[in-house]
């Protein structure tokens, strides 16, 4: 008996009228993967750094994220403490072990900082985004030893810290950066594009926030450093 794999590939080749060993077809595939052509890139995100930050903020707010801008990273813990207070949340966050976040002066606040993955009992998490995309106000978060993916989905409130310098104009610019960091053809285990807080319109087409993921998404933009 032939395997399902061989049968399916043979069926595809029969329908396409090819053998699978044509050099020209193999070259076309290798070349596309090697070159990864960018296609049509919307003009809207093709701005200077300040323009990209403004557009990112406008697009993120348009999808019900909240955005605040800080000048330096050492101001983040105080801003998070104040966010928790204003929203009547317990003074506790979970932050994984991201070096950028860990280096911040959390000891200047009364906020309890927990590390590692979430087990579903945390109300608020703080993540460090790898990048932002101005085009649609999208955050890009990548998993790794210091960045658990559970922090992006289980807590009710998700605070994401993003350096202004990491805001790209379009998704393609982010892929180029990730390839540089991780090598061609390799991605972090999980790459999350996040555009606003969780939502559903499954009941009579009425838009409701906070379906299964975070009910609130708060973005802290750090302008310098």
């Amino acid at each position, binding site marked *: 008996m032939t395997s399902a794999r061989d049968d*399916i590939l043979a069926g595809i080749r029969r329908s396409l009228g090819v053998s699978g060993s044509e050099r020209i*077809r193999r070259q076309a595939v290798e070349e596309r993967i090697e070159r990864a052509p960018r296609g049509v890139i919307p003009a809207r995100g093709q701005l200077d750094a300040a323009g990209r930050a403004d557009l990112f903020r406008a697009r993120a707010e348009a999808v019900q994220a909240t955005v605040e801008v800080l000048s330096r990273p050492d101001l983040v813990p105080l801003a998070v403490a104040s966010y928790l207070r204003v929203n009547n949340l317990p003074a506790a966050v979970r932050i*994984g072990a991201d070096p950028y976040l860990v280096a911040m002066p959390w000891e200047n606040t009364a906020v309890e900082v927990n590390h590692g993955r979430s087990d579903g009992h945390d109300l608020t998490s703080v993540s460090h985004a790898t990048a932002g995309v101005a085009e649609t106000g999208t955050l890009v978060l990548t998993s790794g030893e210091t960045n658990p993916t559970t922090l992006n989905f289980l807590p009710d409130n998700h605070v994401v810290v993003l350096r202004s310098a990491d805001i790209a104009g*379009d998704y393609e610019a982010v892929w180029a950066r990730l390839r540089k960091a991780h090598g061609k053809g390799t991605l972090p285990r*999980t790459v999350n594009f996040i555009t606003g807080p969780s*939502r559903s*319109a*499954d009941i009579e*087409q009425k838009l409701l926030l906070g379906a*299964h993921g975070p009910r609130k998404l708060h973005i802290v933009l750090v302008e310098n450093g």
Partner: protein
Amino acid sequence: MSIEPTSKDFKGNAHRALNDPNLQKAMGFVRVGFIEKRAVAAAGLPEFEALRDSAREIKDHTLAHLDLYIEQYEKKVVEAGGTLHFARDAAEAREHILAICKAANAKIVTKGKSMIAEEIGINAHLEANGMTPVETDLGEYIIQLRGEIPSHIIAPAVHVTQDQVEADFRRVHTHLDPKRDLTEPASLLGEARAVLRDRFLTADVGITGANFLIAETGTSVIVTNEGNGDLTQILPRVHIVLASIEKLTPTLEDVSQILRVLARSATGQEMSVYTTFSTGPRRPGDPDGPEEYHVVLLDNGRSSMLGGAFEEMLRCIRCGACMNHCPVYHAVGGHAYGWVYPGPMGAVLTPSLVGVDKAGHLPNASTFCGRCESVCPMRIPLPRMMRHWREREFERNLAPAVARSGLGLWAFLARRPKLYALATRAAIWGMGRLGAKKGRFASLPLAGGWTKYRDLAAPEGETFQARWKRERGGR
């Protein structure tokens, strides 16, 4: 154990749908919501039409090289530590999934939204083998409680009213206070969130679909708004991706092109909330993520659509725009189509997958108004393909005898212009005489289907051709 198509009874299904007040109320929300949102989103991006062309070209290129992209994808999945299982048909896909679940000693299996899971009927199969599949998308959860299939490919419970959801939750969530207030949609959502949160945390296996499989990196991509798909794929020890072969896409850049038209066409969002790229199982040192990562890659008739009249259907990215804009879908809802895929895309795809003998009626469920093609982000010529199916249905003598003899008579006359003019003139003259008094007919032989619901206006005694000749004949 896949769902047996009832598409053959489209007429009966449609008739029942038109007389169902709950369905008609629910469908009212479809007619207004989706159409305007898509129009605004498309108008908001000047490059939208160019992106549609780009997306079409990407898929055409991929389909023409599909065997090679599958090989490349397989290589990358294995490199990343994942396992790829090939399934020729629904039964093989079910067996792969069952075997993985058994090996994982699974009791609870959470599920993200997947049309392929509906296509292969995986829930019934897992249940028959003592496991509990739990749908976690709110719409899918609602229809699972109701024992139904989706009526829309991205809004599965679009046919259900809020009052019906409340009744279902009260019936099933018996552990909660019967006097609780569920009058607001937000309280229904909150209840589903709480009930399902517990399921997410205790599940042994999570099954998701995939919007794309990326050959360059061996990555599966899901696009969701609720976040349920992500909780399904990161929390359990084992993640199974269930996807069909046409989901292959060459590169990250290619996926990005198509993402720009997907959400805009589907819900009118610029981007869905969560677009997640998963590559293999968790890596050494990762604090979370699944320990096993399996992909079940399903053919189920698709490879034989390549190179033929219906190949272009394989470009479909399941956005739902065609049904959101279809007057027939608006009138009868998704269940009338009798199988997993409704609306114009279902009318083309279903006969390809289950056979024209079982689904030949569906391509007739169209007014050929062309709205589906005009909004399809992948520019699939849906009306043309429905016409193809109609021709095949006719060629294979599957059309009803009355329709066949009627068409035969019309064809006989249409090929003989003089006889045609004579016959129509006589008929119009006769009808004009008979209906002259009232100006309309309340009933008419051979036209009962029309006059049952509305009167037929009586002709004024002259055919269009005769009048054309009389008024414009001199020029």
